[in-house]
């Protein structure tokens, strides 16, 4: 009954409507559900790293506090704000498409991309700071292995590592493995997000979207917000926990 299955839509059907869907609404909802299923796999993927983080923080609390306090809280907080604004502009891009305002959609998408790029720029500055302080773990950088200068009590040099009681250099390195794995994977997701937004921007530019057909914008938005959520957890876990112990035994 192949002929019966290959139903063609009647005249007036939206050109973006695939033959296996009843109508645009069903197609959009199926796409949204599919994206959520993908995001679940992403939750489990990042969940594994969050588990590793929790486990080693539980095992080596002093080293994690010492390492965490070396991160730049100002840059971390700034980047958190940048991502929240970008999520807002993304939500507005979806709204603009829903009400059929092409110009507003394009502006919102461009703003979202600028903010995403800003985040990555700040992240690059932070990574470079870690490189300067010899905090890139293991031998990831040839000829520049993990070898931070340990600060003596009373020394406030921010480039030196301030170990609190019970912390060892080896366990601080463990924190930095986790830090680079998690922020690195997050940054990779941001780069992919920027790629997706480029495609969406081009589609918006060419006038592909309308109130009837805006699923690609919405689904890409889901991905963008998800990456924001990962950072909402990474920021307090990596930068904030243990801040109240700053200077203790430094």
């Amino acid at each position, binding site marked *: 009954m192949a002929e019966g299955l290959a139903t063609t839509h009647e005249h007036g059907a939206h050109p973006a409507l695939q033959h296996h*869907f009843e*109508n*645009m*609404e069903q197609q959009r909802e199926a796409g949204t*559900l599919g994206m959520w299923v993908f995001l679940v796999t992403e939750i489990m993927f990042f969940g594994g790293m969050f588990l590793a983080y*929790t486990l080693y923080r539980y095992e080596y609390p002093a080293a994690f506090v010492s390492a965490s306090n070396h991160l730049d809280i100002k840059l971390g907080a700034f980047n958190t704000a940048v991502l*929240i604004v970008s999520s807002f502009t993304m939500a507005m891009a979806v*709204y603009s498409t829903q009400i059929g305002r092409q110009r507003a959609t394009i502006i919102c998408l461009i703003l979202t991309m600028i903010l995403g790029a800003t985040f990555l720029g700040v992240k690059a500055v932070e990574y470079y700071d870690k490189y300067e302080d010899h905090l890139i773990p293991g031998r990831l950088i040839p000829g520049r292995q993990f070898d931070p200068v340990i600060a003596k009590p009373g020394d406030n040099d921010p480039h030196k590592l301030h170990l609190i009681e019970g912390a060892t250099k080896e366990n601080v390195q463990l924190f930095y493995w986790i830090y680079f794995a998690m922020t690195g994977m997050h940054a990779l997701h941001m780069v992919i997000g920027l790629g997706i937004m480029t495609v969406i921007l081009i589609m918006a530019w060419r006038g592909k979207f309308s109130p009837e057909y805006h699923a690609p914008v919405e689904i890409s938005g889901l991905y963008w917000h998800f990456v924001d959520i990962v950072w909402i957890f990474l*920021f307090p876990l990596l930068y904030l926990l243990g801040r*109240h112990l700053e200077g203790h035994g430094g």
Partner: protein
Amino acid sequence: MSLEAGYCPPAASGGSPTLNEMSEHIVQPRIYVVIFLALMLGTALTVTAAFFDFPGPLNAVVALTIAVVKATLVVLFFMHVRYGGKLIVLVIASALLWLAIMFAITFSDYWTRTWQPPF
């Protein structure tokens, strides 16, 4: 959610497309603005709270509670889950369940490793 409705044979629903084509809920910008402000406030709160010395493990509890609230706001409003179908809620709940299982089983090992036998 009209996804289920779409599984009807074409003859049943094909004739009246309006039955299936329920208009989706369009979230108004002022809601986005409120959520955006709440998220910024949450960020300021979590940074401020991090410098207070709460007793015991409360610093972690406060930080994680704020993070969970922020994430929930993003999911419900920015990601439209509050206005969507129950199927998506089920998908998210199943993810959280498996995540909880992964954490619980792993920690049941690490937590108890150093325990001495009671005899």
